[in-house]
């Protein structure tokens, strides 16, 4: 076996072409894996504070970190970073930007300076979602609320409200679906216990399948709930495309 000097190899036209192909191939592979949107969908939001722009939410506590500007941009950057500024809470009637802090995870970026006054405990994603849901239902009991879309971000894989994981786009979508079915459910007062349905929804919000998973024990209650679901189709398209829903329809506490 004989060794060829590098200088002579570089002078070789065939070698230079091969090297160019190799570099180009690596760039394509690296770019494809890095900027592939599907790959990013499996990414989990962990310690980053995330923004929820859903109807009138409770004003953000003054000393919490990272309140971004209220107006969501139409085409945000792929990796929006929270700003370490502390902004005063906006007035309650206007849609405000709220923040969700995942308490177990340390913040990766510089924290804002602590304020002297005692701060309320940060709310978990689950608590905030429950509060928002109550507020939306209270303000829009009989109609589908015009829930503004959360800032356009890539959808994380985990469901909104999952343990320690929050997806604002999914949360907003779930609120819209919930309000829509709520507004279409008539006769729920005949129910004593909740029926549960399994739905398969395609990427356009159309119904692929609907099955009664758990009966309320009352045929007429189950029928009223099924009518509510069918009246609500098509649902707003899910940010994740096709999706399966476990739908629990709980009657209002009646006698």
């Amino acid at each position, binding site marked *: 076996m004989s060794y060829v000097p590098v200088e002579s190899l570089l002078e070789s036209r065939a070698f230079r072409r091969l090297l160019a192909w190799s570099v180009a191939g690596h760039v394509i592979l690296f770019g494809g*894996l890095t900027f592939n949107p599907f790959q990013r969908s499996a990414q989990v939001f962990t310690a980053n504070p995330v923004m929820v722009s859903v109807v009138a939410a409770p004003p953000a506590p003054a000393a919490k970190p990272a309140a971004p500007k209220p107006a969501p941009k139409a085409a945000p950057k792929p990796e929006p970073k929270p700003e370490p500024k502390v902004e005063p809470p906006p007035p309650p009637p206007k849609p405000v930007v709220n923040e969700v802090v995942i308490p177990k995870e340390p913040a990766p970026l510089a924290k804002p300076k602590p304020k002297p006054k005692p701060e309320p405990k940060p709310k978990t994603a689950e608590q905030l979602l429950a509060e928002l849901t109550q507020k939306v239902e209270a303000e829009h009991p009989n109609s589908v609320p015009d829930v503004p879309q959360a800032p356009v971000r890539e959808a994380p894989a985990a469901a909104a409200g999952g343990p320690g994981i929050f997806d604002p786009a999914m949360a907003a979508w779930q609120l819209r679906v919930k309000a829509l079915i709520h507004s279409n459910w008539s006769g729920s007062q005949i129910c004593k216990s909740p029926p549960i349905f399994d739905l398969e929804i395609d990427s356009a919000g159309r119904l692929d399948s609907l099955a009664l998973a758990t009966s309320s024990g009352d045929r007429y209650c189950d029928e009223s709930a099924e009518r509510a679901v069918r009246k609500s189709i098509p649902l707003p398209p899910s940010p994740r495309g096709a999706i399966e829903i476990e739908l629990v329809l709980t009657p*209002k506490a009646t*006698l």
Partner: protein
Amino acid sequence: MKRLVLIALVAIGLALPAHAQRVRIDVTGAQRAIPVAVQRFALAEPGGASEEFYQALVAGLDFSSVVRHVNPEAFVESKVTRDFEMPAVPCENWRAIGAEGLVQGEMRFVQNKAQVRFRVWDTARCRLLGDVAFRERDRPDLGLLARIVADDIVERFTGRRGVSSTEIAFVSDNGRRNKEIWLMDADGSGKRRLTNNGSINLFPAWSPDGKTLIYTSFKAGQSELFLLFRGNRPGTRLINTKDEKYRGVWQNQDGKIAVVVSRQGNTDIYSVTTNGSSPQRLTEARSIETSPSFSPDGRQMAYVSDRSGSPQIWIKDLDTGQERRITFNGPYNSSPAWSPTGEWIAYAAQAGNNFDLYLINPEGTFTTPLVTHPRSDEDPAWAPDGRKLAFTSNRRGRKEVYRVDVDGNNTTLLTDGFGNSSNPAWSRWLD
């Protein structure tokens, strides 16, 4: 190069989700009536009665509080039934106006009878709810026929018949000094007098089949029990003894009647047959026992006893003879009324100088207010579907009869301008 592209594609493919993801959504229902479109029934012959029938029918639906009619001005399809025999209807056009149901029917008159055929669609699922139904009544009873149809429609959607075709008996002085037994439709219309003896008549109570009314009257001097039969059959005195009889209620379908009797100064509850024979003592205590009301199966009796020092609600198991007290709050609880579904006992509870209405479960473990008003509310009486009650209130000064839904909503005055009225007794269905 091809190999590189292949590797890149495989990497992208692995990143794609293998299947659709699953989320859970919880929806809490609201108190909202089911919207149902009603096409006017097609008349087989011209007669002009369809409009009267239609108005009574939609009023009967709305009366239920569970089903409501959709304004026909919103209809995309015809307001009159045209395709009764067709095997399908354009459900999407009914869904488009928000209707979850559609009622179609046809009507005809045969001699003195009004006959209707109707069917009910679930437009959300686009299927028939049950078969085509047939109903008939005498021609003058067209309004009643419409309410019967409305009650049938409510049953198709909820599993329980509506009560718009039922009646309420009550006591009224109608602005005079005597108190007579009166009858009105469940919506408060069509009041007619049942007794006319110029005396004091009280406590009407219906038989389980809804054909006979028992009431207390002083027309013979002391209080006695009398029966009234539908169809103008004359009333009879029930028990021919010298004991004072305060009140009677039917126990069950066997025709037995529980009677509150004062004998030698001790008031107790007895069970007798309709002709007053075979008396059997149901309560034995030396205290005052009164106001019996029976569970739907007739095996338990709720009543009021002051054996604990104040009037409270007790329940007696008629099979075992065991008695238990179920109310412990308040100094005075009275007028128990067991619901037709068996789930609740309505009663009046003293609050200050007045009474409020409450519901308690037969186990006595859960109590909830039904009607609380600064003035007195008393005498609860259940509708046969268990979704409504009638009661007496003096909230406008004199005693008047009201109606309320079991959730405390839709309180409605039924005896406006009718003097002092009280003691409502809600009938069963007439057919």
